[in-house]
C-alpha cells in the first residue's frame, strides 16, 4: 500500500448528501477484476447520461476538475454497500483523499486498507471549502496528514481521523503483517475460548 503524507492537488466538489457506493461504482461493474480499469467507470451513471454522453454539468466532467486527486463531498459520503471496489474506482481514477463531514463506516475501513485518506471536517468547513472551490476552481488545495490540516486558499482547517488509521496511512502498513505479530495471542485465545464457549463451534452435517 502506498503511503500518504502530504498532497497538493486540484479538488473537485461533490456536494451531495448520502452519495452511496452504488453511485461511486454501479453494481454491474462489480464482476470486473480490478485490472479491467475500474477508474474509468467511477460515478458512471452520474457522469454519463443514458445516451452515453458526458453530462457537462457534472463537476468531475469539468476540465478544471477532471484530473482532481481530492474530492470534497457531503455528509455520509459513501454510505451503503460494502463494495471495496468503490474505493478501487476512486483510487484508480486518481483520487487520493476525500474530505467530507462524515463517511459510511464500511467505506471508511475499506479506504484506509487501500491508501485512500478520508478526512473529516465539520459541515461549515466543508461548505466553506466548496464555496472557495466554486469561486476559484483551479486553485489546488493541500492535505497534510501529519499536521491533520486542509489548506484551502488562505484558510487552514483541522481534520479528524482515527489515530490508528492515520499511522497506517502514513506508513503504508499492511494489517496482515501486524496481525501476524500477535499470532501467539490468537492461538491462546482460540484454545481458551474453545473451553469457554464450546457452543460457538458450528455443528453442520456436510
Amino acid at each position, binding site marked *: 500500500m502506498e503511503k500518504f503524507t502530504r498532497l497538493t492537488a486540484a479538488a473537485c466538489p461533490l456536494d451531495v448528501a448520502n452519495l452511496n457506493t452504488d453511485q461511486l461504482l*454501479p453494481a454491474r461493474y462489480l*464482476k470486473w477484476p480490478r485490472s479491467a480499469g475500474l477508474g474509468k467507470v467511477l460515478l458512471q451513471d452520474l457522469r454519463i447520461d443514458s445516451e452515453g454522453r458526458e453530462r457537462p454539468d457534472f463537476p468531475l466532467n469539468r476540465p478544471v476538475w477532471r484530473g482532481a486527486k481530492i474530492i470534497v463531498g457531503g455528509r455520509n459520503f459513501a454510505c451503503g454497500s460494502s463494495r*471495496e471496489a468503490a474505493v478501487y474506482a476512486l483510487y484508480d481514477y486518481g483520487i487520493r483523499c476525500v474530505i467530507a463531514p462524515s463517511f459510511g463506516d464500511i467505506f471508511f475501513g475499506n479506504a484506509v486498507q487501500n491508501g485512500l485518506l478520508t478526512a473529516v471536517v465539520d459541515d461549515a468547513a466543508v461548505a466553506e471549502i466548496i464555496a472557495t472551490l466554486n469561486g476559484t476552481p483551479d486553485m489546488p488545495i493541500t492535505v497534510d496528514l501529519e499536521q491533520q490540516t486542509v489548506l484551502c486558499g488562505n484558510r487552514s482547517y483541522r481534520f479528524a481521523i482515527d489515530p490508528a488509521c492515520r499511522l497506517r496511512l502514513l506508513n503504508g502498513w499492511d494489517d496482515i503483517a501486524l496481525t501476524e505479530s*500477535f499470532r501467539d*495471542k490468537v492461538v491462546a485465545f482460540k484454545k481458551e475460548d474453545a473451553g469457554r464457549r464450546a457452543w*460457538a463451534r458450528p455443528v453442520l452435517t456436510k
Partner: protein
Amino acid sequence: MTQKQTLFDKLWAAHEVVRREDGEALLWVDRHYVHEGSFHAFSRLAERGAAVAEPDLTFAVADHYVPTRAPRKNIANPELARMVRQLEDNTATHRIKLFGLDDPRQGIVHVVGPEQGLTLPGLLIVCGDSHTSTHGALGAYAFGIGASEVAHVLMTQTIWQRKPKRMRISIDGQIAPGVAAKDIILAVIAKIGAGGATSHAIEFAGSAIRALSIEGRLTLCNMSIEAGARCGMIAPDAKTFDYVKERPAALKGPAFEQAVDAWSKLTSDEGADFDREVALDARHIVPHVTWGTSPEHALPVVATVPDPMKEPDPARANDLRDALGYMGLHAGTKLTDIAIDRVFIGSCTNARIEDLRAAAAVLAGRVSKVPGLVSPGSSAVKRQAEQEGLDRIFRDAGLEWGESGCSMCVGINGDIVAPGERCASTTNRNFRGRQGPGARTHLMSPAMVAAAAVTGHLADVRPLLASRKP
C-alpha cells in the same frame, strides 16, 4: 466491582484477543460467510500463496449472481456462470463448505445463516456484504466488511476494529394490524437519518421489539445499515432459543442447555450506559413507503410528496429536489396517487416465509395490475411456500414465481427494472439505479407491495386487510 455492561459490551469483550493502546482491538471471528463477490479477497490469498486459517468457520453461498428466472444447472449467461464457478473453485481449493446451486440449502446468505442454525446468539459474524447486520437479530455481533478485511479474516480468523459507540433504540407499545417490522425500521431511519447511527452499534429494545417474531427482528436488524449503523442487535430471549433449537445445525441435549445458559446472560444490564438513546412509540407507527432515493426518504403512506420549498436548509432542499427529479415526482402529490409499473418481493430484508405469507394474504383471490417477480429468500423458503400453496396465490395473481437469490434487489443477475420504471419493492435500498440504471424504487413491507400490486399504485394495505375480516 463489575461495571454495568450493555449487550454490545458483552459481545465485544467475549471476542477481544488483543487491545492496543490506541484503542483498536483484534477480535476473534466465529463465522465468516462468503459469496461470489468475495473473489477479490480470494485473489489476494492467491497472490500471497496464503491458506484459509479456519475453513470450518467459513461458509459460502451462491446468491448475488445466480439466475432466478432461468435454468440454474447450466447457466446460459457466461458472465454469471463465471462468477458462480469462481466461487465453486475458490471454496473447493480452500475446503470451504459451499451452499451452491445444487444444494437444497442454497439461498441468500443472510437468510441461510439463521435458517440453517449457523447464526447463533453470542457469535461474532462477518461477511463481505453490508446487510450482515441482519444476523444481530439473534443476539450476534454481525457486520459487513470490505474485500481487504475479508482477505484478512480468511487468513487470520480475526479482524481489527475500534469499538463503536452504543445506541439504544427503544420501541414500546403495541403495533397496529397491517404494520410490519419494515414499517418500524423505515420509521426509525426517517427519524434519525441515513447517517443517524454512523459509528454506532444499535441495540433494539422495548416491548414492540420483544413482540416481533424472529423473522421480523431479522428484517429490522437487516436495515440497521441503512441508518448508517455498524451493526444492529436484539437481546436473545425465549423466542430466540426456540427458533435456534429448531434449526438443522442446532446443538442437542445438554450442549444446547449449556448454550442457553450462556445466551441468557446476553442482555444489557439494568442501568448500563448508552452513548445515545432514541425512543419511538409503536402505537404511532403506520405503514411506510419511501418516495425518494435514500431510505431516509420514508413517510407514512397517508402523507404527500414533500416540498423542497418548505425545507429551510438549502442543502437539504437541493437533496429533495434532486430526489424528486430522479423519481419523476412533484411536491404535494398524495403518495397513494403514485402509479407503479411493477413489483418485487424478495431480498435478504423481506423474503422469509412470514414475508411471503403476509404478501399472499393480501393477494389471495386478487389480481395484480402490474407485472412482478417473487423470489424466495432461500430454496428452503421456496419449498415451504410451495407446500403451503403460496406459489399458487402469487401465480394466480399474475406474478412470476422465481428461484432464490439476491435478484432484483441489486440487479446483478440480470433481474432489473427498466429505465424510468417505478417498482414497489420489499428490498432495502431505493438508491438511484439500484434496481437497474434509471429504475425508480419505492421501499415498503411485503403486505404493502401486495397492496400496490392489486391497486396499481402505492396504497395503504390496512383497508385491504380489513375487508378480509368476516
